[in-house]
């Protein structure tokens, strides 16, 4: 699948931007995130014969690679203070275990982003802002049942989006 230029282009079109967003979320630096994506494709190409369709999706495999790349780049940056200070206004440097946590956070944010505006708003109000359902319903001029139903569908749609991103219940 990475054996020729078109294969690389197709895999990049399908997964490049999301690999980049995960790397940026972890590394907090656009240049470093782009470096991580390039390195991920090189490693994926080198190991392409070890990729087994039957064992899981291409996305899961690529994310396993980018996770390692992010850890390597974080370690390299940790011993190069000049680079680290450049991004002090962005994300903290993450190493090893932190990468797992950031991966989960990033998956949840990707899933939130895919929700319709209505569904996301309902979830943000009742969950993140801890507002009572009836209050949110009154604000929007809809029945309480509508808000409850939007929250249910928001969670349901997020579940499907997360499964596509390789979500596992044992995190």
């Amino acid at each position, binding site marked *: 699948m990475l*054996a*020729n*230029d*078109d*294969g*690389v*282009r*197709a895999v*990049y*079109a*399908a*997964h*490049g*931007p999301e690999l*980049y967003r995960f790397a940026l979320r972890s590394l907090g630096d*656009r240049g470093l*995130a*782009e470096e991580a*994506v*390039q*390195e991920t*494709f*090189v490693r994926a*190409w*080198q190991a392409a014969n070890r990729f087994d369709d039957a064992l899981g*999706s*291409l996305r899961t495999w690529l994310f396993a690679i980018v996770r390692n790349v992010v850890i390597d780049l974080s370690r390299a940056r940790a011993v190069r203070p000049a680079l680290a200070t450049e991004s002090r206004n962005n994300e903290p440097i993450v190493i090893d275990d932190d990468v797992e946590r950031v991966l*989960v*956070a990033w998956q*949840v*944010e990707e*899933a939130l*982003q*895919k929700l*319709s505006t209505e569904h*996301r708003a309902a*979830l*943000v109000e*009742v*969950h*993140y802002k*801890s507002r009572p*359902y009836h209050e949110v319903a009154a604000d929007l001029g809809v029945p309480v*049942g509508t808000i*409850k*139903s939007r*929250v*249910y*569908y*928001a*969670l*349901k749609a997020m*579940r*499907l*989006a*997360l499964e*596509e991103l390789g*979500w596992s*219940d044992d*995190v």
Partner: protein
Amino acid sequence: MTSDPCRELRGALGAVALGNADEAEHIALRAHLDGCAECRAELRELRSVAAGLPLADPARVADVTSSGLLQPSPTLAKRVLGRVTAERFARRTRRRRRVGLATAIAAAIVAFALVVPDGSPTGTHVALTAKEAGVTAKATLRSRNAGTEVAFHVAGLHQGEYYWLWVTGDDGDRVGAGTFQGTANASDLVMTAALPLRDARRIWVTDEHDKVVLDERLPAPA
């Protein structure tokens, strides 16, 4: 097949998963869960999502949506290709030393022969087969950087019900293009599935019960 009580308790199910249900909802749901394995499984799934929510920052999501900040630079695709090509060249050079020039040239010719032209810019037009009476739909699929864009025209779905649009790849995995609500009149939607158009083999729609409502196979690219 999901029965009506399950549907009526969905609001309660979401609230219980989030941990903000009231006493009446707890009681009603508990009584139902004892006899309904489907809802028990669903509650487990939604709780797992709810457990992940505190890790995310919704403000960050709003920023991303409005600014497009999280897109890689448009030249990244070229640089990725450049790096992989350089690696491939390096490996071929190493191999050439081992197995000789003729084999390497043969490998290069095979690599070129595998190149296929891009999908037509006007898009692939598809009329979907309805699995439910009165439903009609057609779609235009276009190749985009983010994957396969589906311009979808649909009529005859149930007002207010939720539907899922899926695209299945040549690897058999389904990729969601998004959810939408049924309307009494015809509606036009544009959604994107994160897989390349050339890999798309099937486009289909499911309802709230995961029942297939519309379905069509896509021809493999020539």
